[in-house]
């Protein structure tokens, strides 16, 4: 198991270097001289030359890239913002807690709502509840998050005046963005849980459990659920990674000071180092979440664990 984890972490390295390379190349190819951007229009040619030499910007492309990776690994230094002049790492670390909180809230809502809905839908297949749940899941899946976000603001902030439309400093302010962000995940988890349960309750081992004289509730909640959860856990993990990386729209609509919004703002202001750092950071976060999900997978499915060598 430990060997498996180590191997997975080793595999992460080429993936991240690949991501970094793509982003770095894009940045390199975009017009605009970083030295001029940082020092400003008033800087003298000499000062610019000096800055380029100091930052290694006069070196060949591959050397610059190697330098970037080296600094990133050894010092956690992934460049400086053109605008604020502060290290990109600091900028990201300042905004990441909000994104993490938002994603965590959203995934908790998605699991707490989606899982029971999916189970109930499966147990009471074709019932009124099942039909309603499937209709709502369809709506949740197909409604774009910016549209849903605006509707939520209209209803809860403008008309009812219950919740603030923006910000992320209080618990109340966190409700609307989390809800908007979780809608798609709720729908996907509901549908996946339902179909997974439906498949499992027809399995032979469920019949075996019933033939032992086991109570129907234990058959469903112990035997069926554990097996049905296996694909759902994967989905939840993927969704969480997705929420971490993809909260850009939600953060923009609700003015949540997270990584997504930082990236949108940086793109608008051509603050490329921040964009680059943001993409890299999101890639790391996504990969780490995926690794954790795979490990969790081994925990709930002994057949997978046997393959982790």
């Amino acid at each position, binding site marked *: 198991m430990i060997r498996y984890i180590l191997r997975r972490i080793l595999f992460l390295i080429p993936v991240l270097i690949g991501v970094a390379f793509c982003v770095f190349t894009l940045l390199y190819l975009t017009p605009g001289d970083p030295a001029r951007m940082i020092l400003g229009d008033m800087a003298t040619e000499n000062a610019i030359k000096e800055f380029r030499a100091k930052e290694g910007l006069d070196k060949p492309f591959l050397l610059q890239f190697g330098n970037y990776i080296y600094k990133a690994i050894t010092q956690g230094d992934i460049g400086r913002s053109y605008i604020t002049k502060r290290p990109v790492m600091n900028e990201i670390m300042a905004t990441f807690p909000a994104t993490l909180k938002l994603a965590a809230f959203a995934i908790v809502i998605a699991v707490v709502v989606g899982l029971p809905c999916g189970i109930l839908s499966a147990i009471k297949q074709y019932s009124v509840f099942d039909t309603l749940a499937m209709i709502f899941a369809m709506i949740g899946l197909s409604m774009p998050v910016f549209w849903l976000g605006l509707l939520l603001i209209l209803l809860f902030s403008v008309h009812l005046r219950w919740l603030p439309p923006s910000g992320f400093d209080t618990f109340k302010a966190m409700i609307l963005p989390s809800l908007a962000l979780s809608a798609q995940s709720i729908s996907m988890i509901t549908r996946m849980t339902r179909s997974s349960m439906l498949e499992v309750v027809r399995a032979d081992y469920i019949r075996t459990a019933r033939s032992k004289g*086991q109570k129907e509730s234990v058959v469903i909640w112990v035997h069926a659920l554990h097996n049905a959860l296996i694909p759902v856990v994967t989905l939840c993990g993927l969704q969480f990674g997705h929420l971490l990386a993809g909260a850009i729209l939600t953060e923009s609509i609700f003015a949540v000071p997270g990584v997504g919004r930082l990236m949108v703002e940086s793109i608008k202001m051509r603050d490329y180092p921040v964009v680059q750092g943001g993409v890299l950071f999101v890639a790391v976060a996504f990969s780490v979440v995926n690794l954790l999900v795979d490990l969790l997978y081994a925990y709930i499915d002994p057949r997978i664990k046997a393959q982790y060598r």
Partner: protein
Amino acid sequence: MTDKTNTNTNDNLLLDIRDLTIQYVTDSGTVHAVENLNLRLGRGETLGFVGETGAGKTTTALGIMRLIPSPPGVVRSGKIIFEGEDLLEKSEAEMRAVRGGKIAMIFQDPMTSLNPVMTVDKQIAEMIKLHKNVGEAESLKLAGDMLELVGIQRERMRDYPHQFSGGMKQRVVIAIALACDPGLLIADEPTTALDVTIQAQVLELMKELKRQFDASMLLITHDLGIVADICDKVAIMYAGRVVEYADKRALYTSPLHPYTIGLFNSVPDLDEDKEALNTIPGLMPDPMDLPSGCAFHPRCTHATEECSKSKPPMVEAGPGHFVSCPVRAGLKAQGGE
């Protein structure tokens, strides 16, 4: 017809199914899975339940366990009298005590009949805890004992089903079934999914344990060889009905029903040098649209006009030898064959 075998006297009767009719009601029609089925099983006996796929054998077994999936399954009529009580009258809670405790079932495919995410000792212990008044530790200890009994080392009790071979899994399933010393064991084609060599081992084990536990057994199979090996009585099923029921010896020496004869003829004979196997002409009827009268008459060489008109009753053609074919029973009575 002078002396009836002792299995027909009531005190020795363990299971008595009368007039059982089970249907599956679907949008495209009603499937007549089991029709007016009558079956008797004495204590300590092994009854072979033989028929083609779709004849209604498994439905009958699930009917006894009251595990017919509903919808679409409906028990239309009949009685399933087990140890003097009608199982169809019992409440769900009473039925749970019967399942596993008094009637246990072994399923066809051991690869899928164990929970893949639960260690085998827990799966056996679950059964024990449900029917015996023991704690967690004691139930696990008993589970280990059961594993040893079916020939699996105790050290492997914490393993998961995927760590066992097919034959070993079926041994685990047998251990679960016998864990609470049931009076009746229903085995639904327990060896069909296994290799031939493993089949023999598993059958031998079942035979041995059945004797050791003094249980009765209902063995569902389509293999006449297995029936010859371990059964005392045989019931031949065709299109939801029992068409012949007799002692194994009587059935093998003088089969009466044309379908039974057809089944025996279609068993390949190694001594004969033949190009093609003997088959029964025609196909199993569509269970949604059974032929009138005797369901077998369209395929029967002995069929008379009467056969398509009324459903043939079960007649006792010899001591304990029942057949639902008046034509053949009549021949036998006249000493024709």
